[in-house]
């Protein structure tokens, strides 16, 4: 019963990240038309709906005494506002940073519901976000500094002999940001959810054994609940880290070191 490997291979813990088509339309119009609603699209719409309804619910409606939702949302807004101010010095990029934070936070948190799909565990979403941000930041830097933007790749006070080497290193580290930003979010979410799935599989096998084993399994089950708490914290921390790194990349593009 225990350690049955066949069981693990059939129900692979990576199965939960598969994008499947829920509703599809295939038609031979205009070549080959394929419109389908995948679970990724469904959960993206769900995240959008949750974010919009959260902000609608927490709307203060110019009442003098704010509701609890309103206070919570405003404190989140205040902390993001202070973060953006600290890093960039102005509030021009606040709407972008705020919506990015809420998108990633809600996407991560909805993924913690059992049997749901996390859109950030799809590499298309996380790498797509980070690539979009990096391209936008590069265009921003080029439009502000024109050709002086390339002085970013040469740190000040470099001896001339070292310039080709340093330019190469800086260029690689600049391009690696595009990957590392997205992969960090992706890896955190995938590793966390896979770990929970594996642990849950073990717990299920132990709970469905004899009664004494099932009672004793309550001890590792408390540990599992603690790991779920950690997952919730990771969801929040990853959204925060993504946003703070985006802020610092924008700052790099504006100020060039």
């Amino acid at each position, binding site marked *: 019963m225990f350690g049955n490997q066949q069981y693990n291979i059939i129900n692979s813990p990576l199965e939960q990240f598969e994008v499947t088509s829920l509703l599809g339309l295939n038609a031979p119009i205009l070549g080959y038309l394929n419109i389908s609603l995948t679970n990724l699209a469904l959960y993206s719409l769900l995240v959008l709906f949750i974010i919009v309804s959260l902000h609608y619910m927490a709307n203060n409606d110019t009442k003098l005494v704010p509701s609890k939702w309103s206070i919570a949302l405003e404190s989140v807004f205040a902390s993001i506002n202070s973060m953006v101010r600290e890093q960039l010095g102005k509030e021009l990029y606040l709407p972008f940073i705020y919506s990015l934070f809420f998108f990633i936070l809600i996407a991560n948190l909805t993924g913690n519901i059992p049997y749901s799909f996390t859109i950030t565990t799809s590499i298309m979403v996380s790498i797509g976000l980070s690539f979009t941000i990096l391209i936008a930041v590069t265009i921003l830097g080029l439009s502000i500094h024109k050709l002086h933007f390339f002085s970013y790749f040469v740190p000040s006070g470099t001896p001339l002999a070292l310039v080709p080497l340093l330019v190469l290193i800086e260029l690689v580290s600049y391009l690696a940001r595009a990957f590392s930003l997205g*992969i960090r979010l992706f890896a*955190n979410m995938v590793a966390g959810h896979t770990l929970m799935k594996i642990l849950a599989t073990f717990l299920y096998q132990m709970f469905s054994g004899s009664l004494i084993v099932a009672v004793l399994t309550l001890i590792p089950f408390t540990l599992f609940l603690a790991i779920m708490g950690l997952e919730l914290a990771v969801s929040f*921390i990853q959204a925060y880290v993504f946003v703070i790194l985006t802020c610092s990349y924008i700052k790099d593009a504006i100020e060039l070191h």
Partner: protein
Amino acid sequence: MLAAAKYLGAGLACSGLIGAGAGIGLIFSALIASTARNPQIKGQLFSYAILGFALAEATGLFSLMICFLLLYS
């Protein structure tokens, strides 16, 4: 043979978590030490520590992800 190599590789990939564990421990030890020295900037230090924690944890999770990929795909 291939399956055995897969499991060996997965186990070896997990050794990347040694560094992540050491790094996270260093970050929080530094947080505690610096908070004990200057408790006034606790909030600022904590946000830096969380950032460092996430960056250090991510490197460990890269290797853990490789391990999962080896095991289950």
